[in-house]
């Protein structure tokens, strides 16, 4: 079956999802990112790779942080970045998604960074560009519905590789609202492709997708057994809007059962790292003592995220 992310030479031309990405492609992105990491430490934090290219951040759903990290990454590659708050402009006036895309292509866009509340929107844009024969225009998925958030998944893999080197002996626990989390899906696909020994999905039954075992993970409804002897914990953000429905009794109750406290973390291996995609809810999914503790690598994740996004854009724009 044709992989919509690869061109006819098998090179990455869009980044839509980690699902279906060959291991070699993931490793190429992570290796390239380590070179870009050094660029951010220099006096001149820029390389001329994307000079003259126009990167359009097209966010149909608000996310200041993700948009900013893509903007910084594109600027460090010397691209021109245009931020469109589509929710408040064209779409509000009734323009369709693909009409918006056609307009931006007519403005000579070279790359779209797309965030959309609907799963599959970036995929739709990539298909549309293919039908137009525009193989020179690239799409990066910056989060679509509850489907995928591939650059977050890749920066999580970069972080794990940085601190643990090898995936083959690792037990990784992903804790929290996996049902609504595009990050969790991207992480699971990436960890499986990179050969992690064990991936555990930890959370209450109401927040785990049915049949998640089919993705090759071990399900734990109990935090203590989910954390025992693991090497990496990835905490997910509990979105406030989930609290009011039938899924959860209350934030306090959630923290009591699934909040990561120092006592709970002590069940994991002593050198276990704690990750979180941000923004954190202290006292809901994570205790401040853990978030600010020596095992937390949450801020390095942010730094690595810029380098990983530079690598993704640098590779796509050259293919």
């Amino acid at each position: 079956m044709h992989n919509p992310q690869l061109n006819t030479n098998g090179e990455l031309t869009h980044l839509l999802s980690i699902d279906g990405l060959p291991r070699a492609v993931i490793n190429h992105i992570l290796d390239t990112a380590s070179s870009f990491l050094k660029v951010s430490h220099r006096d001149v934090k820029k390389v001329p790779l994307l000079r003259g290219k126009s990167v359009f951040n097209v966010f149909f759903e608000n996310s200041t942080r993700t948009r900013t990290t893509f903007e910084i990454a594109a600027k460090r590659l010397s691209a021109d970045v245009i931020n469109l708050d589509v929710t408040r402009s064209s779409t509000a006036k009734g323009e369709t998604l693909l009409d918006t895309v056609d307009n931006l292509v007519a403005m000579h866009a070279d790359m779209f960074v797309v965030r959309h509340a609907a799963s599959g929107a970036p995929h739709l844009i990539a298909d549309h560009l293919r039908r137009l024969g525009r193989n020179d225009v690239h799409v990066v998925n910056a989060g679509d519905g509850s489907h995928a958030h591939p650059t977050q998944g890749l920066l999580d893999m970069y972080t794990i590789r940085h601190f643990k080197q090898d995936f083959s002996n690792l037990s990784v626990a992903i804790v929290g609202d996996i049902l609504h989390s595009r990050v969790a899906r991207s992480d699971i696909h990436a960890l499986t492709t990179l050969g992690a020994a064990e991936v555990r999905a930890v959370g209450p039954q109401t927040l785990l997708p049915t049949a998640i075992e089919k993705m090759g993970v071990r399900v734990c409804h109990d935090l203590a057994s989910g954390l025992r002897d693991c090497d990496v914990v990835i905490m997910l953000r509990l979105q406030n809007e989930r609290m009011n429905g039938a899924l959860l009794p209350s934030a306090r109750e959630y923290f009591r059962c699934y909040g990561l406290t120092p006592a709970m973390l002590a069940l994991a291996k002593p050198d276990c790292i704690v990750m979180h995609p941000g923004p954190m809810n202290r006292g809901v999914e994570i205790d401040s003592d853990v978030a600010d503790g020596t095992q937390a690598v949450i801020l390095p994740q942010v730094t690595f995220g810029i380098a990983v996004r530079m690598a993704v854009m640098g590779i796509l724009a050259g293919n």
Partner: protein
Amino acid sequence: MSSEPAIDLPDADAQCAQLAELIRPRLQEDTVLVGIHSGGAWVARRLRELLGLHAEIGLIDVSFYRDDYGARGLRARVRPSSIPFDVEGRPLILVDDVLYTGRTTRAAINELFDYGRPASIQLAVLADRGRRQLPICADFCPWRVDLDPSQELVLSADANGRLQWSLAANA
């Protein structure tokens, strides 16, 4: 199909020693070497030993500065550049294995200036195969050779670190 005329490839290790002697009289107290990945890095390491320099060498990978990115993309494995000294005000010697079109040298100079303003940059190469496309020349070079553009001159290092030349068909 005509066979390529055979040419004798010189001993690359002996050339490193010649190159070191060309550089030696022009060394300043704070001169540092910067090797271009990967062939230039091997040669720069060898030169540092031969010249008895204390300062660490710098290594650069010019992938992010190449002018053929639009045509070739970022395919090959990019290695991190590492410049473990302050470039500002230092005399630098840029080291590469082969000087050909001059485009790699151009990219390397551009990258070095993103670390600071060096006092000077000189260029040392093991081989100069002519046919420049930019106004660049080597300050130190033990071997000038004219090869057909269909041929690629490749430096490789074996397990013991011995350097060796070979010819390959240009991809």
